[in-house]
């Protein structure tokens, strides 16, 4: 059964149909790409899936559960985590704490337990530290655990965002242009990391990307958006050789 099942998702801003009838079905464990020219509506799809915007039409099902119209917090709890095209880290907090904050709903203790430094707090914090360091290691960020997130170089900030999202233990991970601003070396490293995350965490990943090398290198399936509408959908190689796609997107 599909982890994510989206049916005719639409939203318009004023007269603009930013997303118009977006439909997709993503299987568990798939690495799925969402591509399209600038302004095609890709980020808006993510904002719809994560409850930042409410769709004017359409249904979103996550693992069989209807999550249409829920708010961001509920949707994260249901199992979708994301990164942002324009990085949104907790920049005045250390790298480690950014990830620990991602575990907010996974490992709990009350405010009073925290203030009184009860044993339960130490126990949970130890687990949190351990698990967070584990994730940071996957992204090669463990040595910088004590650096403020805002002081990390750009490429590492992108990675930290993925790490934080993973900490919420989602069923589906949405990555909005994870390779933006990275050099070719960093990008190929990132490709390995994304594959590793999928295999190691048994994750389903939907990613937006402009870097064709990355898309063709790791995505198994693609959807192509153009002016808010689906232009093509299917196996990566097939989609990328579709003349319409080449004309609308690759040829520009």
């Amino acid at each position, binding site marked *: 059964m599909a982890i994510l099942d989206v049916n005719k998702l639409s939203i318009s801003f004023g007269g603009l149909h930013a997303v118009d009838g977006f439909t997709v079905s993503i299987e568990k464990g798939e690495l799925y790409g969402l591509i399209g020219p600038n302004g095609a509506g890709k980020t808006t799809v993510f904002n719809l899936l*994560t409850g*930042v915007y409410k769709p004017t039409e359409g249904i979103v099902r996550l693992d069989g559960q209807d999550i249409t119209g829920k*708010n*961001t*917090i509920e949707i*994260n*709890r249901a199992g979708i*985590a*994301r990164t*942002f095209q324009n990085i*949104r*880290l*907790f*920049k*005045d*907090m*250390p790298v*480690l*704490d950014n990830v*620990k*904050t*991602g575990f*907010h*709903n996974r*490992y*709990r*203790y*009350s*405010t009073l*337990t*925290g*203030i*009184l*430094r009860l044993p339960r*707090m130490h126990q*949970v914090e130890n687990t949190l*530290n351990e698990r967070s*360091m584990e994730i940071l*290691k996957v992204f090669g960020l*463990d*040595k910088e*655990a*004590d*650096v*403020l997130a805002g*002081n990390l170089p750009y490429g590492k900030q992108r990675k930290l965002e993925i790490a*934080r*999202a993973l*900490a*919420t233990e989602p069923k589906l991970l949405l990555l909005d242009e994870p390779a933006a601003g990275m050099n070719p070396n960093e990008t190929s490293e990132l490709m390995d990391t994304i594959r590793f995350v999928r295999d190691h965490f048994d994750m389903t990943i939907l990613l937006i990307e402009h870097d064709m090398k990355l898309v063709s290198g790791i995505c198994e399936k693609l959807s192509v958006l153009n002016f808010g509408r689906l232009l093509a959908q299917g196996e990566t190689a097939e989609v990328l050789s579709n003349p319409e796609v080449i004309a609308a997107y690759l040829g520009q």
Partner: protein
Amino acid sequence: MNTDIVKKIKNRRLRSKLITYLIVIVFYVVVQILINTGNLSSLLTGLLVPICVYVIAAVSLNLVVGISGELSLGHAGFMCVGAYTSAFLSNVVGSALPETLRFILAILTGAVFAGLFGLLIGIPVLRLKGDYLAIVTLAFGEIIKNLMNVVYVGIDSKGLHVSTTSAMDLHLEPTGKQIIKGALGISGTPKNSNFTIGVILILLTLFIVQNLIDSRSGRAVMAARDNRIAAESIGIPVTKFKLLAFAVSAALAGVAGVLYSHNLATLNTKKFDYNTSILVLVFVVLGGIGNIRGSMIAAVILTALPEMLRFLSNYRMLIYAIVLIVMMLFNWAPAAREWRERVLSRLPFGRRKAVGKEEV
């Protein structure tokens, strides 16, 4: 190696908290020595409790302004609620309870009522995105002050009597007792506050605030401050945690109010005006937003300074202004910050550059 860096972070935080407590204790000991050797002027001695009041107020306000990233301009309002409710309780209870127990009860009363007012204001306002809290708290401070100015409350065998017109309208029995007397306030509150109690309450405030910041809830509060959208995207109920920080801050401001009201023979609303709210905010800004230790030190220096500079007579306010500017530069000018970071990183217990603005 992994655990090394975690341990390092943990130790740094623990050390930072302990240093803060240590500063308070050293300050206490030094003042005691000065008093016992007769080296503290009576004017300064009289300022000791107010200093504690301002320190608690500043530390608690920093929880809202620095840690939660919201602006509150009505902190004096919460102090007022704490001061009045606790003084009221102490007067009603009188000698029916042992003094220590009564004062503990008074502190709790002030904290709870101020905290409740915090919730009352926070629940509607913190849902909104934007700087509405500043406007609403500003109004709250003024309203509370003006309200307490016209309220008359008395008690007799039939219970509480409340009026907003005059003491006569309370219609108390001859044996009844008038407690809040409008603009005249409350008089006869037992003088339970002293410097030692003040320092204990400072330590308690620091304990609550520092540990809160360094916990799961504190991280959620700071995450909501740094990036609301990202915080929601990882499932953090932003409003709830902003409310938590605000209510705790209000309750602690209430405690500052309790300390204040139990230090005076007569309590009225004069001190709980806009100027006090701004003064406390000045301590927070000068001490460094989000820097708990800084706001504490700023509160002490700026409260004591005018007295200590008295010998300069007319130049007093000039020097005061210069100190304000120097502190401002020290904490905020980029060059000064760099210099401080460089010096700090050289010290054996210093922290790595680029680390620690979340410092407790």
